[in-house]
């Protein structure tokens, strides 16, 4: 009887164990930073959605956010950002992340990122992220070292002065078992 109970418990637990390898993005904050001689501007998005699947020791995550979800508090700047980044033609910023499954529970992990944005596909390797575990959830935070030239974006100008080429994107994401 006990043997059968054990088998039944294992059978019921199997889907849950299988699901431990999948992740769901619970909340996120993505911030791009632009620097102009007269401005420091930030655009914030909380609209990202994401999923992750861990198979054979490797975890693959997919995170995507609409380009027009980034808000800087200035409509004019947001529309200009949308134009220079070809946001109407390529409306999503899509990030694919690959990390070893074992790294998920360490303090710092280095991830390989593939970023699709503005019609370009750019790879960033070994980008450091801080990992903080709280219960079953994981919070990842880090900065993607993006530049305008990576994505073939013409630097917007104000008073004939272009913005700086570096547009680092600060990322904070909380993932839970999916």
């Amino acid at each position, binding site marked *: 009887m006990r043997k059968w109970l054990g088998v039944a418990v294992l059978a019921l637990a199997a889907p849950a164990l299988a699901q431990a390898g999948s992740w769901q993005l619970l909340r996120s904050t993505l911030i791009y930073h632009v620097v102009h001689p007269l401005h420091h501007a930030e655009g914030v998005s909380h609209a990202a959605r994401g999923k992750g699947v861990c198979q054979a020791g490797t975890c693959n995550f997919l995170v995507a956010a609409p380009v027009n979800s980034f808000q800087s508090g200035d409509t*004019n700047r947001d529309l200009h950002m949308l134009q220079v980044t070809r946001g109407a033609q390529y409306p999503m910023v899509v990030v*694919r992340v690959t990390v070893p499954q074992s790294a998920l529970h360490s303090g710092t992990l280095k991830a390989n990122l593939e970023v699709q944005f503005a019609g370009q596909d750019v790879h960033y390797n070994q980008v450091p992220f801080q990992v903080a575990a709280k219960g079953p959830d994981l919070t990842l935070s880090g900065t993607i070292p993006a530049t305008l030239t990576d994505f073939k974006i013409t630097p917007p100008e104000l008073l004939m002065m272009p913005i700086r080429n570096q547009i680092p994107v600060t990322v904070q994401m909380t993932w839970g078992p999916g």
Partner: protein
Amino acid sequence: MDIGKIACVAALAAGLAWGQAATLHGKVAESSGAAIANAQVEATSVATGMAQRARCDDAGDYSLPGLAAGRYMVTFSAPGFTSRSRQVTLTAGAEHELDAALTPLLSLASLGFPSSETQGNAKEQALLNRRSHMLHIHQDLGLITMIPLVATVVSGGFAGGRASHTGKRELHAILGTTTAALYGATAYYAIAAPKIKGVKKKGPIRLHEAMAWIHMPGMILTPILGAMAYSQRSKGERVHGIARLHGEVAIITLAAYTIALLSVTVHSGPVGHAASHSLHAALHLFGRRKPVAPVEGARP
């Protein structure tokens, strides 16, 4: 019957069976058309439950030879992709082709974004490009306009009064006309720039546009009042009536224009904060003085 004969009959039977067997082959690819290497294909006989498996090569091709005729459930699977099953009926001795397109487990569709949100819109992009192009010209012309505008206001100090002579008034009039023409072109590029539907205006653009309600009437009124003042002075009369307000209207117009310019150029960062404080202080002072001026001007 000896063992040799039995083996011969068995081999013949197997050969006949092989000759009547069906072959299933095909290609496994992503929905985009990219081949999926190493995908697994499993054909399970509906009648017997017997399964046969094959792996795709680097080109995504697979082949399952030696299948008995009948109905099969064929399942295609690959790591990172959603499995897919299809039913097929195989006839003896025939070759059947069965391709499969697998959807990645992690796709935009799997994240729940509607396709309307993920598909590009070239028409809307063209509209944004046109808008930015026109506003870029608006910005450049706006900056250029500032030069004759300031020069007009400064030259106005020498063009008025009893001691002024015709040459100074004419220079003032030429500068004023240049300013008005450039302002008109600047305004055209802002007004004619395509509007983006469904966008609620936020931030400094609101102050920038609000100022237009002051400097635009000012830019229309100032030359009219200036022409009236010029005419009165040319007749040897003292400037009188509403023409007396020419200078005041011009200064208010310049102030509103300057605020409009600063509001969209300098509003964050260290330089911006300093400018913003000065701007607020100026607005505060302006706000205190503002109610007084019309009352004084209204008196006979």
